[in-house]
């Protein structure tokens, strides 16, 4: 066991550093061609890198003060592009991969629905085959980047006679196709954030945009939601981004707030939990390095990280007292020099309820741990085996 990170004089590190020093302001196209966008991919796209090299690349990109590609085009780099690599046709790979990795075409994921949420299998958007194309009709919600995206990965129901999970398929969508309307969602923070509603009004999608085979939509979607690019995710309060418990403690010390023993104790609890979350991320990384699947600690980390982050921003907000209710009052200094969307204590707080929402709520996460890790009896979905058309008979809303 060794908790030290690859040292400064690590030869692989030096090579990467040299590349960036030779190119002060590299384009993402350059980085993509050098294999630094998806180092863990096979060549030509990546470097077939082991986890440690991936880590080195991450750190050197940060050191070169370049915004990480997975922040510029997250859906492609973190979630979906890999499916093209594994399930796409040559033509699809040829057409879409490099522009995506070079961040020349932003992608979005068209998954969640107003009626769907965590029960993705209950989605209602349909894709009807008509000769050489499909016709898509329905609505998606919580689509991040839809307003910027050129490409959308859509999951829709192609066969309603099958049970809920079996009748789904995935498509690669041109977001500028006629019939697509994108409407931003205003969240409770009052900000027009990156989330959108997307409406499909009989949108024509060429048949060759089917990703994988018909009926593979569920499996593809699940793998895309799982795909976690190995990364030393710093335990920021908002999905790993934004302020961390370290930022909280540094800020409170700087402000001389630690004199209050109650705040001191709460801050210490959060600091300790935050450090542990870092360690769990390292552990997951090590497992990958040792070519093992992420161990149970990965699930545990997810279950703990979200409420942890909420308590971090909550304490910072409570410390502000009345002042904290005034819009724009950040109280503590911006973490990460305010680089990221959530590197703002005030915004991070009013956004924080979202962290435990959406796909994979805490309840579902805990069920997963209880069932898959601890082997306790499984929760049954009474509608899982029924043809979707049957399930639909009693018109019921479905939960997000």
């Amino acid at each position, binding site marked *: 066991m060794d908790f030290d990170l690859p040292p400064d004089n690590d030869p692989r590190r030096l090579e990467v550093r040299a590349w960036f020093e030779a190119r002060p302001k590299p384009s993402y196209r350059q980085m993509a061609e050098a294999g630094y966008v998806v180092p863990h991919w096979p060549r030509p796209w990546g470097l077939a890198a082991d986890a440690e090299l991936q880590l080195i690349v991450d750190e050197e990109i940060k050191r070169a003060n370049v915004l990480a590609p997975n922040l510029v085009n997250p859906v492609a780099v973190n979630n979906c592009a890999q499916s093209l690599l594994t399930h796409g046709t040559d033509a699809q790979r040829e057409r879409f991969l490099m522009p995506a990795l070079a961040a020349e075409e932003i992608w979005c994921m068209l998954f969640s629905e107003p009626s769907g949420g965590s029960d993705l299998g209950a989605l209602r958007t349909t894709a009807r085959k008509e000769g050489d194309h499909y016709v898509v009709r329905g609505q998606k919600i919580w689509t991040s980047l839809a307003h910027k995206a050129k490409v959308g990965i859509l999951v829709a129901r192609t066969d309603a006679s099958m049970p809920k999970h079996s009748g789904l398929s995935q498509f690669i969508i041109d977001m500028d196709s006629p019939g697509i309307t994108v409407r931003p969602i205003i969240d*409770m923070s*009052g900000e027009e954030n990156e989330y959108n509603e997307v409406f499909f009004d009989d949108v024509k999608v060429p048949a060759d945009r089917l990703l994988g085979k018909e009926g593979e939509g569920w499996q593809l979607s699940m793998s895309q939601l799982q795909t976690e690019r190995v990364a030393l995710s710093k335990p920021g309060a908002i999905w790993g981004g934004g302020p961390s418990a370290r930022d909280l403690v540094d800020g409170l010390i700087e402000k001389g707030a630690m004199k209050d023993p109650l705040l001191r104790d709460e801050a210490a609890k959060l600091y300790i939990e935050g450090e542990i979350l870092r360690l769990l991320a390292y552990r997951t990384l090590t497992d990958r390095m040792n070519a093992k699947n992420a161990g149970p600690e990965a699930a545990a980390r997810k279950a703990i990280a979200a409420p942890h982050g909420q308590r971090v921003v909550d304490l910072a907000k409570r410390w502000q007292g*009345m002042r904290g209710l005034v819009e724009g009052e950040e109280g503590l200094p911006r973490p990460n020099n305010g680089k990221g969307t959530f590197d703002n204590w005030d915004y991070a707080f009013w956004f924080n309820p979202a962290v435990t929402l959406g796909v994979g709520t805490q309840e579902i996460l805990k069920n997963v741990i209880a069932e898959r890790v601890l082997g306790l009896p499984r929760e049954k979905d009474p509608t899982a085996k029924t043809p979707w058309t049957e399930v639909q008979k009693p018109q019921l809303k479905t939960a997000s």
Partner: protein
Amino acid sequence: MNFALSDDHLMLRQTARDFLENEIDLAPLLKPGANVGNAGYDETWRKMADLGWPGLIVPEDYGGSGLSCLDLTMIAGEMGRTLAPAPFLGTLAGTWAILKGGSAAQKEKILPRVAAEGMKLALAVSDETGASDGPTSDARATATAGGFTIRGAKYFVVDAASADLLIVAAEHQGKRGLFLVDPKQPGVTIATLPWRDITRQVCEIAFADAAAELLVADDAAVWPWVRDRLLLLLAVESAAGLQVVIETTTAYAKERVAFGKPIGAYQSIKHQLADMFSVGECANVAVLYAAWALSEEAPRGPLAAAMSKSYACDAYVDATHRSIQIFGAIGFTWEMKNHLYFKRARANAEMFGAPAVQRARVIEMLETQAA
């Protein structure tokens, strides 16, 4: 002994509920970019004036209804349920200050106008840190020929921008006094803050030698009495808002379906709602007891007020957060009411001393008793 609400109280509450459920429409606040300016503050107040609500606690001698704290709770609770945006809290605060600190002449001059004309008041006590207990203050009063002038600033003043008369805490000769200040004079500048709880008007006031009339030279005997009632008022609002949150979230859990069942059929949701309900019952009884104790001027009144504020506000904050969780993503959007309740809960918790501050006071009071 009888802990049940009397029929009069139940009727009072029902009347208020019928009126407010009818009149209060928060829809304009659920549009993008909305702020307290869209809340219909003044119109609502006018309608309340028609019902005589401005004078609820004004003694009958001055043309008010002379309601006790317990009576008032019936109406204040409904204000909390509906988040009714109106200069209700500010006017109550001002009235209490005048009732406790004002001279007969001042009462005679002001209270009838409150009761009859719906004159709006605001009480400016908090300093820049939000501390309101004095004795220090960010404003100073200087004696002049005609009376006093005030220089300085007050912060987090509820309903100041809409007020017809301000009651201002300012230092004078080492004590904190309360002064009457006409907001409509050049020396007074009022800025409405971009307050997260957009159902409430919260302001900052700057005083540049503003003319003022002395209400009481040392508010040490006045402010605590007023503060106890403000703590109760916030507790009442919070406990009542909590009930709405429980009701709406329970209803949602019954109709919303996930994985083939209503989400309310999952034990984790059931138990969360059961917890919210139990805590809600606790908040209700804590608030009623405090209201009764203050009505009776019982020795335990101040203790009960602090306890109810601490408990009800913590419960409200927790429940409004859970409610968003249970609603799921939709509950996080601006167009739903969930966030309005969440923000009211957060704001109420901080006003006039956060729950932890109240708990520290509770032990202090018990220590004094024991000593």
